[in-house]
């Protein structure tokens, strides 16, 4: 498993090199690229948190960005409406998102598969509608702008490093979770719920736990968005963004751990680069997506891992 597999060693070296490059990025890259990298991390973290329930739990959480948005709003509101330290706002975001996820989960988890997804998207849209309409509290469709950030993260480089460190810590935490006892059983629930029941697993409880964890890390990515952009608006939790995040997971490979991060990078870069030349960048995204579904059904990273022969082709790739 985790012994001296040369391909694995190579991947680890590549990963470390990439991490080092990301740490020194602000030293050699123009500001715009630093900003772009931060954005990729934020979206990638969001996609990875979705994949916790989507890829590892097999739960169709169609409206995941509601936790992203709520995390961001919770931080923004704490910072602008209270005199407490703004850092507390960054802590509150994930906790509020996790709490919302618990409530929504309690309601939705009794349904399975598509029905779960439909109810979840409805409840999420309800949250969006409240935020969109409640002008006196959330600023309605205007959102909240010019959120005063702590000095340490108010510069582009400052917010970049903050995002980088928090993202890496969150990724590490999620990696531990999917490889923990909980994570192993969670994947078993994905593969066969009924069988899990008959070996003594309370399936709904396991799923609820997964939802709360995914909501928490969705909230983390939300507060990172605040750190990078200093602003929040209702579109953060509109369902179309949820769809985009699902695409990130499928594109990168939803049965791999880092696939969603790669998918996020592809989409953010595609939008930025192709978006310079045409506003119809989604057309190219559509074409690429179709090609991937036909030729790389396990996603980009899934495909490469398979080529490396490192994964057992269909395994949940706890080791990626």
């Amino acid at each position: 498993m985790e012994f001296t597999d040369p391909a694995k060693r190579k991947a680890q070296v590549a990963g470390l090199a990439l991490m080092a490059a990301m740490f020194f990025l602000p030293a050699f890259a123009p500001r715009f690229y630093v900003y772009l990298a931060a954005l990729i991390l934020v979206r990638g973290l969001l996609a990875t948190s979705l994949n916790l329930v989507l890829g590892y739990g097999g739960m169709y959480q169609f409206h995941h960005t509601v936790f992203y948005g709520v995390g961001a709003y919770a931080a923004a509101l704490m910072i602008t409406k209270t005199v407490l330290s703004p850092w507390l706002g960054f802590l509150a975001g994930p906790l509020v998102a996790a709490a919302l996820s618990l409530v929504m989960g309690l309601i939705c988890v009794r349904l399975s598969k598509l029905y779960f997804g439909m109810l979840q998207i409805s409840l999420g849209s309800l949250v969006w509608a409240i935020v969109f309409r409640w002008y006196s509290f959330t600023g309605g469709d205007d959102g909240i702008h010019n959120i005063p950030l702590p000095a340490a993260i108010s510069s582009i480089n400052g917010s970049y490093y903050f995002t980088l460190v928090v993202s890496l810590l969150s990724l590490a935490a999620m990696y531990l979770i999917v490889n923990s006892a909980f994570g192993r059983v969670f994947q078993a629930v994905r593969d066969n719920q009924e069988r899990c029941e008959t070996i003594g697993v309370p399936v709904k409880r396991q799923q609820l736990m997964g939802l709360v964890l995914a909501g928490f890390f969705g909230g983390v990515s939300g507060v990172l968005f605040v750190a990078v952009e200093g602003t929040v608006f209702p579109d953060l939790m509109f369902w179309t963004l949820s769809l985009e995040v699902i695409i990130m997971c499928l594109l990168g490979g939803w049965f791999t751990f880092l696939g969603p991060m790669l998918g996020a990078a592809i989409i953010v870069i595609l939008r930025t680069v192709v978006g310079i030349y045409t506003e119809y960048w989604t057309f190219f995204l559509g074409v690429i997506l179709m090609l991937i579904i036909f030729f790389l059904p396990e996603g980009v990273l899934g495909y490469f891992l398979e080529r490396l022969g490192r994964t057992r082709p269909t395994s949940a790739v706890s080791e990626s």
Partner: protein
Amino acid sequence: MLKVEGLQKAFGSFMAVSDANLEVRQGEIVAVIGPNGAGKTTLFRLITGQHKPSRGRIVFEGRDIAGLPAHRIAQAGISLSYQVVSVFSRLTVFDNVQVAVLAHQRRLLDILTPARRLAVKETWEVLESVGLADKARRTSGTLSHGDGKVLEMAIALGNRPRLLIMDEPTAGMSPEETAGTIELIKRLRSERDLTILFCEHDMEMVFSIAGRIMVMQYGRTIAQGTCDEVKCDLHVQEAYLGISV
């Protein structure tokens, strides 16, 4: 150990099990036989909690378990090995069994301890005793049918049941595989102190390992007794007319 009394299950107007009675004593191997559609599988699903009985009692070790959720019944010490291979197809053989062991150890919500450090010894022990140790790293979805059935059994053993229920353990197996499975069941019973309840169409297999037999027809128990008693029973001969008993 297990006592089923007047058990009934209706799906709408269809009575799948109308009056099932069964007694299993500690350490026994009991077979349930009966024509297709007699309600054997439904009976097993009632005992393991996947269906809720409409009426009747299921007493396991002195406790009425009728209607409890399936995971509670599994925790009480009853495991089911399915007729159709029903495993965690994306996980490895090892992980499949480990999940059951983790469930037994109640480590389900442990998000801090890596799974590879938990339940390892117990999992290997089960894999070795059923003879799947050399295939432990295979993805379970790629196993042959025979190995899949053995994995079925290994998962069921993973949560250390006292009563193991097997729904047609040798269905679809070649004669050699069947013989191997019979040996395995006999060995497991003595090694692990198991009580076994199973159903099977292969009469030769039933008579070779079952201590007692319960016969079902049209959802109702028509006889229960030792092999010889059952063979002589007139009702049974009637139910099996045309099938050699």
